């Protein structure tokens, strides 16, 4: 049996479609209260969990593979294989702030306060640039923080940029682009080669029109 962790939220719909197109039955997955969905016919179990939890499940081996945004993956800092990127879930992780910062060389300001759901990535970004910053971890609407003076800047994912505009914020820098990614537990990759590999290959074949390169085919 293979256990697949799928991230809830905007990635879930496309992820369900991906596995359904491969012949798996995730009928109950659209019922948002279901946490575990079994497809005994195909010998698969799907775990539906918060995006930030997917890398953890996979690193510990509670799930063999997972589909998660690269944003959550980078933030988690886990040691897993990430053989392919999928053609959905595109977004960008950016630094944003009020328009006053646009020209006001924010890169030279000391002691900036930054609100984010991505404290690890944020600290890495600021310290790599030699900036002293105070990172404030928030769990909900990050855009609120600059409006009420909680923070000078925010680091968050943007899709269209509408939420930023609506809250009077502008993008100051892009940290990285993110897509949905397939991740694989290292022990499962070694101990259960056939099963894991068959799934990786199916996903990569289906996705090959987008795929720059994928791990299995690259060596052939």
């Amino acid at each position, binding site marked *: 049996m293979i256990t697949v962790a799928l991230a809830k939220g905007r990635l879930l719909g496309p992820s369900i479609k991906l596995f359904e197109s491969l012949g798996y039955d995730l009928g109950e997955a659209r019922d948002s209260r279901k946490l575990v969905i079994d497809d005994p016919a195909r010998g698969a179990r799907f775990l539906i969990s918060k995006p930030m939890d997917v890398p953890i499940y*996979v*690193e*510990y*081996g*509670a799930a063999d593979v997972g589909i998660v945004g690269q944003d959550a993956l980078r933030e988690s*800092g*886990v*040691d*897993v*294989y*990430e*053989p*392919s*990127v999928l053609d959905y879930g595109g977004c960008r992780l950016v630094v944003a702030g009020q328009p006053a910062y646009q020209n006001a060389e924010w890169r030279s300001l000391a002691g900036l306060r930054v609100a984010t759901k991505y404290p690890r990535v944020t600290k890495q970004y600021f310290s790599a640039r030699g900036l002293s910053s105070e990172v404030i971890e928030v769990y909900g609407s990050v855009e609120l923080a600059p409006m009420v003076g909680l923070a000078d800047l925010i680091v968050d994912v943007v899709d269209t940029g509408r939420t930023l505009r609506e809250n009077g914020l502008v993008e100051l820098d892009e940290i990285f682009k993110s897509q949905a990614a397939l991740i*694989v*537990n*290292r*022990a*499962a990759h*070694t*101990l259960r*080669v056939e099963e894991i590999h068959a799934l990786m290959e199916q996903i990569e074949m289906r996705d090959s029109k987008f*795929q*720059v*390169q*994928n*791990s*299995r*085919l*690259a*060596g*052939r």
Partner: protein
Amino acid sequence: MISQPLDKQLPHGVADLFFNDAARKRAVERMLADTFARWGYSEIIPPMFEYYESLAAEAGPQLREEMYRFFDRDGRTLALRADFTIPTARIVGTKLFDRAMPLRFFYVGPVFRYEEPQAGVRREFTQAGIELIGAATADADAEAIALAMTALRAIGLDEFRFTLGNAAYLQATTRDLALSDTDDLALRDAIRRKNTPALARLLDALALDAAHQHALAQLPALWGGAEVLDRADCLNDDARAAIDHLRAVLARLAQFGLQDFVTLDLAENRGMAYYTGILFEGFVQGLGFAVASGGRYDNLIAHFGHNIPAVGFAIGVERVMIARKAHATIALDVVAQTHSARVADARARGEIVEVDILNREDDALREYARVRGAHEIWWRDGRREILP
């Protein structure tokens, strides 16, 4: 926030062990030590702390960062040992360099790393492992891997699989590229994580010649059986030697009947910064992270004055404890109501006998014996009661 008083708490990353957990851990440590000893290894016990300068030798930035450091009264920096390999290298390089080689050492004991919490990681944890010193042969590498596998079997972990790579291959393949540190790190990271899309982007950005481009781009796919060795591009003699060496190690493992438990993985570059040759990790069914890891370190002992090749591995004792679901609980044999010559005799024979010192009522003693897993009660009047 009002902080809680610390006097009843434990710092993050350490644990108290008692009763069955302590007994099971000691049992595992003994079984591992016995296995190593039967292969001709003798125990080495380095100090728990020593000068930071010694331990930081060749440790690499990450392990150095993770060391617990403190000062002695003269202001010199000391550190708790973060592994056994570096202290062993110091001992060999300063004291044992002129002995007949090879030297075979095993160790069992705690090491300390100031690590971020991650899968199966504590800040004080126990390593049991070996160092095989004074041989750079494929036979030495195969012995280290075979012994790691044998040790896992000895503690009842039969369903294992090892990955095997060679740090020398990637080293040789990138040797002529003169990559910046940043690019080199990014390249190794993408290869290690089998992150093919990121690797492709990076190789494009580096604008390498076609030969290097191909050799590196295919690395994430170069894992599996012996056939991956035929697919690897060898751009120079060192790369070819690295591949040939893996072939030789596989052939030696076949003599042990263990070649089928190995997955070659040329993208593997995890592990200690001091690794220069083969590197391997052992995985067991039911656990999502490695229980054993090791590799060859031919330049480490040279740091301490003598150029001696070596290979070794460590098994994470806490990790194998998680994997060993079989509860080898250490139960009592007998609960005796009073001390007697018979109790002393039984203990001399190796039975575990506990004497009641609380003067319990009969029923209370019977219940206590049951909870403790004893199979007999010896009453004051000499009666022996066999428990169900």
